[in-house]
């Protein structure tokens, strides 16, 4: 009854096995058990998007996912997107265009934006605003966040064209 279960996750390409109670939320498994602290807890009520991760290819809010639900899933967090030595184009664009102030929402913003640009490499400003609506910034830096995502989109498309 309600005992711990064996959970296997692939996080940023590495297989992780752990025992967890089914009710543990994915965000806490990542942060507290696996020490992957990029995804943040802003609200724990599915609103803010600070906990956004990519699960089996889709952005989700990891505070609304039970550890047990995620069993067997592939997960990407901000740690799997870029590193201080090799920033992802989006991370660099956020730096260049002042897309962050305190930085609390940024991991969720960028993780979400990677999927947004995969699905729609040439978004309009409205597409970005619509696609990022589930990510809240308490510093309210939305103008620059949108600017950063659009700048990254331009850079990624140019790079892709150059490669072709």
């Amino acid at each position: 009854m309600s005992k711990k279960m064996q959970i296997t996750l692939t996080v940023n390409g590495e297989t992780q096995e752990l025992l967890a109670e089914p009710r543990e939320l994915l965000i806490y498994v990542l942060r507290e058990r696996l020490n992957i602290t990029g995804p943040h807890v802003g609200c724990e009520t599915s609103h803010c998007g600070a906990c956004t991760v990519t699960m089996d290819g889709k952005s989700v809010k990891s505070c609304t996912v039970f550890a047990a639900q995620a069993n067997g899933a592939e997960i990407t967090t901000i740690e799997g997107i870029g590193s201080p030595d090799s920033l992802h184009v989006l991370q660099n664009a956020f730096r260049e265009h002042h897309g962050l102030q305190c930085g609390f929402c940024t991991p969720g913003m960028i993780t979400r934006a990677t999927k947004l640009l995969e699905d729609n490499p040439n978004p309009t400003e409205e597409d970005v605003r619509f696609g990022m609506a589930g990510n809240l910034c308490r510093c309210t830096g939305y103008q620059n966040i949108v600017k950063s995502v659009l700048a990254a989109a331009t850079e990624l498309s140019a790079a892709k064209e150059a490669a072709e």
Partner: protein
Amino acid sequence: MNLFDYLRPASVSDAIAAWQPGAAYLGGGTNLVDLMKTGALQPGKVIDIARLPGLDRIESLPDGGTRIGALVKNSVLAGDPDFAAAFPMIAEALASGASGQLRNAATLGGNLMQRTRCVYFQDPHSACNRRESGNGCGALGGDTQNHAVLGWNDACIATNPSDLCVPLAALDAVVETQGPNGRRDIAFADFHRLPGDTPERETALEPGELILAVRLSSNAAASYQNSRYLKLRERTSFAFALVSAAAALQLKDGRITEARLAIGGVAAKPWRVPAAEALMLGQPPDTDLFRRAAAVALEDATPSGNNGYKIDLARRIAARSLALAAAGTPTRMPALPASVFGESAHV
């Protein structure tokens, strides 16, 4: 959060066999998990149906209808080009709901079954007849801004929050289910229930019954050129409806040959009034006609508290959705889906 047993059954029949009183099916979890965090719901057994095989397809039926599996994700359904072309107001309603991340997780079945956003329901320390029969209603005389103006009684004044369900009601969708007593079809009009004497029974589902799919007829797709969903909310994105309306028309030689109108945010189920629809038949589309139809649709409305404002808003949003439907479905999804702002929001 309470402790619970977690199960991932391999088939629909295993899922149903595993069900017992106090158990809950888990789709995407975007509603159930949040309600378990506050303790409003405390199932002892969680049956994760998200990976059940065969329920994640959108199929065309031999009779021209469409069948959507209960596990099709909200984002997948809204983004399917053929589906959106045939049922644009369903796609628009879905796109106007929640956020990208939530639509990626939310399933069709879970959307139909999502619980009211009444804050007294969500707070386990408030009285609530829906959580527990005979407990009383904490909302009565409380904060009732977003509560019902139609079909309510003193037992419960909550509204159904789903955007998707409003066009499904307008289009006479059919819900396919399987339960301990076998399979059956439920007409959408009978799916959600008004509180009556049993506010704790929100839908027609029997204990343990599982939604398998939703079906739409070929006639439901016939109004694809003239259908709109419109949603008023406190901000233009990522917010539930205060009031909303789904309107679909068929027009021939400048006259209305079929009219469908359902109103959301006003009752425990999407609100449809046959007399309001009948009044438009044979008439040329016209603003005044739409105003009269909307007035009939809201005829029985009464505030359940501090929410009389909704009646006027619902009338206007209903009339405007009809006018927008008459003007024609936009060729592409509006940048702000279902919004009263932007270029697709004017006639």
